[in-house]
């Protein structure tokens, strides 16, 4: 797999590990994860991005994921 295909895999593993508890404590919020570090929760994407940028620094990807039981499927028609 290329680097692009494996981007954010560590962060997604952390997300899946904690998802059951976060569904109870932070449903619908955006969680910010940098590597294996959970930075925090935000109600808006923009504030979550600023927190992630501050923690990760310039040029490093980080995960901003909304806490839902089921991953939404977006329709493009």
């Amino acid at each position, binding site marked *: 797999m290329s680097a*692009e295909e494996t*981007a*954010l895999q560590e962060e*997604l593993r952390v997300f899946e590990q904690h998802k059951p508890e976060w569904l109870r404590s932070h449903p619908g919020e955006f969680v910010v994860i940098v590597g294996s570090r959970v930075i925090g929760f935000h109600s808006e*994407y*923009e504030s979550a*991005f*600023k927190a*992630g*940028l501050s923690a990760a620094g*310039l*040029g*490093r*990807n*980080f*995960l*901003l*994921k909304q806490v839902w039981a089921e*991953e*939404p*499927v*977006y*329709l*493009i*028609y």
Partner: protein
Amino acid sequence: MKWRPNPSKLLLEGPHIEIKISTARPEFDEGRAIGLEYRELPVRALIDTGASLTVINPQIAATCKLLQTDWNKITTVGGKAGRYPAYAAAISFPESDLPAFDVIRVVACPIIEQPFFSCLIGRDILRKWFFTYDGPNGEVEIITHGGGR
């Protein structure tokens, strides 16, 4: 913002708008302050009420060095489904006084291979606008909650 392409052109090309895409504004500003270079890429975007979120050509994400923030599941016409990278971007509207989006999620999906467009403006942006499509007169108008056009 109001434009009048004429009824035939509007029918052929759909409602489109010139936009600029760059890395999200907080990163852009912070990077520029220490001498890093970021591109603001001019792109023609189709306003697509059938798109639940905003989609870009994957090449734009690479050119603008967008930060990836997630993977999203997308289903397109015909039921084609896939998992595509989501990025944080900034989108501005240089030919109007419509307010810019300083931080917005966009998904890079290669369905955008049409000659006219590199971006689909989805309902995540439309939720901030009043959008009028006047087919008989060939006019399109966008008004924002704050009164910007």
